[in-house]
């Protein structure tokens, strides 16, 4: 029975560089994992990856596309991080994004007379409220009845997506749209301007400002302190006199509001109309991004650009005859290895004899 065995030993405090290293390694392992599939389907992984990288970061066009894709990921990812920080499993960013887009589109389509300096703020405000309220639909039962918000927020995604589909296939369909599932284009006042001469719209600025604000709220503010304590220990939070119920509602609202902003920045910045399939799953990818960024706003911004690049690279490799879904597989693999790597944050692996008895 005294075989040499591999076993896990609890670590004290993990060194700071370790979580960075784990995040980096999980990306590397995901790429290796993806390489196996590429080889099996008869492709050279080195070629495919360099094609992807070149497509995403190798040209001004690629870079601007990457940045554009990073915007909704960043916004929804920031929203996710704040909820996850309090151990609220809001996985409804996708639905909250759609509801934000819907509310903003309502303003743009039904009040076209508004001047731009009222139109855009009104659209953003509508999106914040719609995304936030959509998140509250799962937050209220969670706060008052203990209903699991993971399930409700996930299922509400489908409701939101189908609601938008109903509108664009039905009452809001553009009569001049050749029967495509989309609304009439927004008036110019409802379109986000581009930054300088680039093709990147001002949603990027909003995302970056949001990240800075979130950083200060979480790490420096009184409210952020409550969020951190509640996330670590509800008992301690109650003992310290914090109102957990109110914080559940506030944090979920804020989380949904960020996703709602992601929605408005898509319709106002890119499509300029509400349409079917507005988001190719940004709200879900944002969950991966939030965790890969360790819920830190700055890291979430950086990871959003990487994942934006991954998406753009995915379109590029379609020219090589590969499905863009390859990218979804890589995303999943990154999360998989990241969660596996979390183990190393808490335990170290030892080879040797386990001490018997205790």
């Amino acid at each position: 029975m005294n075989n040499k065995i591999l076993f896990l030993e609890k670590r004290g405090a993990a060194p700071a560089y370790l979580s960075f290293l784990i995040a980096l390694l999980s990306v590397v392992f995901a790429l290796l994992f993806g390489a196996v599939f590429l080889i099996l389907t008869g492709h050279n992984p080195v070629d495919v990856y360099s094609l992807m990288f070149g497509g995403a970061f190798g040209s001004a066009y690629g870079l601007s596309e990457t940045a554009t894709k990073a915007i909704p990921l960043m916004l929804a990812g920031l929203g996710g991080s704040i909820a996850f920080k309090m151990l609220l499993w809001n996985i409804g960013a996708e639905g909250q994004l759609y509801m934000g887009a819907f509310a903003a589109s309502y303003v743009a389509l039904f009040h076209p007379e508004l001047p731009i300096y009222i139109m855009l703020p009104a659209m953003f405000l509508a999106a914040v409220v719609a995304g936030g309220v959509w998140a509250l639909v799962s937050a209220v039962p969670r706060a008052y009845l203990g209903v699991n918000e993971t399930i409700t927020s996930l299922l509400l995604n489908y409701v939101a997506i189908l609601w938008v589909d109903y509108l664009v296939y039905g009452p809001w369909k553009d009569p001049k749209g050749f029967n495509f599932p989309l609304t009439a284009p927004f008036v110019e006042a409802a379109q986000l301007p581009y930054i300088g001469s680039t093709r990147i719209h001002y949603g990027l600025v909003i995302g970056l400002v949001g990240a800075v604000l979130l950083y200060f709220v979480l790490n420096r503010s009184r409210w952020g302190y409550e969020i951190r304590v509640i996330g670590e220990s509800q008992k301690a939070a109650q003992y310290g006199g914090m109102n957990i119920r109110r914080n559940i509602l506030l944090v979920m609202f804020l989380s949904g509001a960020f996703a709602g902003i992601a929605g408005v920045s898509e319709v106002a910045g890119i499509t300029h109309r509400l349409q079917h399939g507005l988001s190719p799953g940004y709200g879900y990818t944002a969950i991966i991004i939030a965790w890969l960024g360790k819920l830190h706003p700055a890291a979430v911004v950086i990871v959003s650009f990487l994942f934006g690049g991954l998406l753009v690279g995915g379109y590029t490799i379609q020219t090589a005859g590969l499905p863009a879904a390859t990218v979804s597989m890589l995303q999943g693999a990154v999360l998989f290895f990241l969660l596996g790597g979390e183990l190393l944050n808490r335990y170290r692996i030892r080879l040797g004899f386990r001490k018997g008895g205790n």
Partner: protein
Amino acid sequence: MFFMVAEGLVRPAVSCITCQGDAYMTQIPLVEMRGITKRFPGVVANDNVNIEAYAGEIYALLGENGAGKSTLMNILTGLYRPDEGEIYIRGEKRVFSSPKDAIDAGIGMVHQHFKLVYPFTVAENVILGQPTSTFLDMEKVEQAIEEISQKYGLWVEPKAKIWQLGVGEQQRVEIIKMLYRGANILILDEPTAVLTPQEVRDLFATLRQMADQGCAVIFITHKLHEVMAFADKITVLRGGKSVASLKKEDTTQEELARLMVGREFSRKRIPRKPAGDETILKIENLHALNDKGRKALDGVNLELKKGEIVGIAGVAGNGQRELAEVITGLRPATEGKVWLDGRDITNRPPRQIIDAGISHVPEDRLGMGLIPNLNSIDNVALKCYRSQEVGKLLLDTACLKERAAKMVADFNVKQASLYMPVKMMSGGNLQKLLLAREISNNPRVIVAVYPVRGLDIGATEAVHELLMQEREKGTGVLMVSEDLEEIFKVADRVAVMYGGKFMGVLPVEEAEVEQIGLMMAGSPGVGGVAS
């Protein structure tokens, strides 16, 4: 010892009968633990403990929290290895290197928190982890369960899912699981904690039946009346030592209470000036429920004076924790009032009670009192982060850091860095940091629950000194303690809690240990009703 069944599935439920043959008749103890010592860093959990249990007997292991009962049983069930001492099963020396060895030797343990898979059926839970053949014959298993059920009066429906069952039934499943595995030495950890009085009677009727069939039953408890009602023999553990092994006929509830709390200790008191006359905290006919919805406080009355320390003595689980939680707003009172300086604070939210000047050193230091993964600065902020001095919307981190650094220096907290998660600190230093924070906002009243539990001598002295300093400043202190020596040393008055109320409140100088022992066992005190 047990033949490995070839068809693998059904292990005979007859093992309890087999033990009748040899051990029961020849009076060799079915299980004997001799000279067991187990040390953990900083504590001796078991110190030369001896127990022996015979087939046919119900055996009680009595002791307060931390007396070493659970460690001893964890050794018997193979979870820990003793540093010294031997285990004999039916006179034969055995060494258990894993729980499996103990199970093979016929030892079965029913834990306080059941180890059941809720979506599974009773039968599926019973064969969980058992060697089986490739194909399960559930009918055979169900049949075997029904046989056991009938034999011992343990009625359960084998096809029922665990989540459909009540707590009492779940406990029966745990017992059946052990019997199915061929256990004839059954250990139950606090088996009555979750049961209603009727269920308790049913449980012990079953246990008696099992003993009559030749099993040995050991139950861990700190409830004296249960011991007197149901046990044949009793071993009292205190501070890791077995202080007495008695037959039920030869002892009384009072004697057991005395043995549990111990009688030889110095009655040295810390010198002090007399307490004030002014009442700070008044508790009137307070009622509350415990986590399970049963009555935990049943009419508590107390007046705490300015500059006074009242020690709350009693066996753990008699409502001490609930009392502290009701006073601090963490648990609602169902009836009665709490007044602070003449102001009604009953059922106010914790925030208002903190602001009114009640500090709380909770029983659960790391998890409630302190947040394990946050650093000292963030932990110090827990009670002052709302105050204007540490910032309005944004927290003034420099100010908080200064506060934390001052507390660490003033209270001699040893730590590597202010920025280290507090879970890395030792128990004594954690408690000093917690006390430092709770004292820093100049409280009117401090509610301290087991403030020195698990601390070494140096840290204990430091905590007592801090409480005395607060007393001198005029703060009222309610100190829940399981250690009479501590109460005699620090407190001005002692209130003895039993069954959710005070059996008596009397000045420490006039208190006799025997009298307190009696009150802990549930006899109303002669020293007067709560003032």
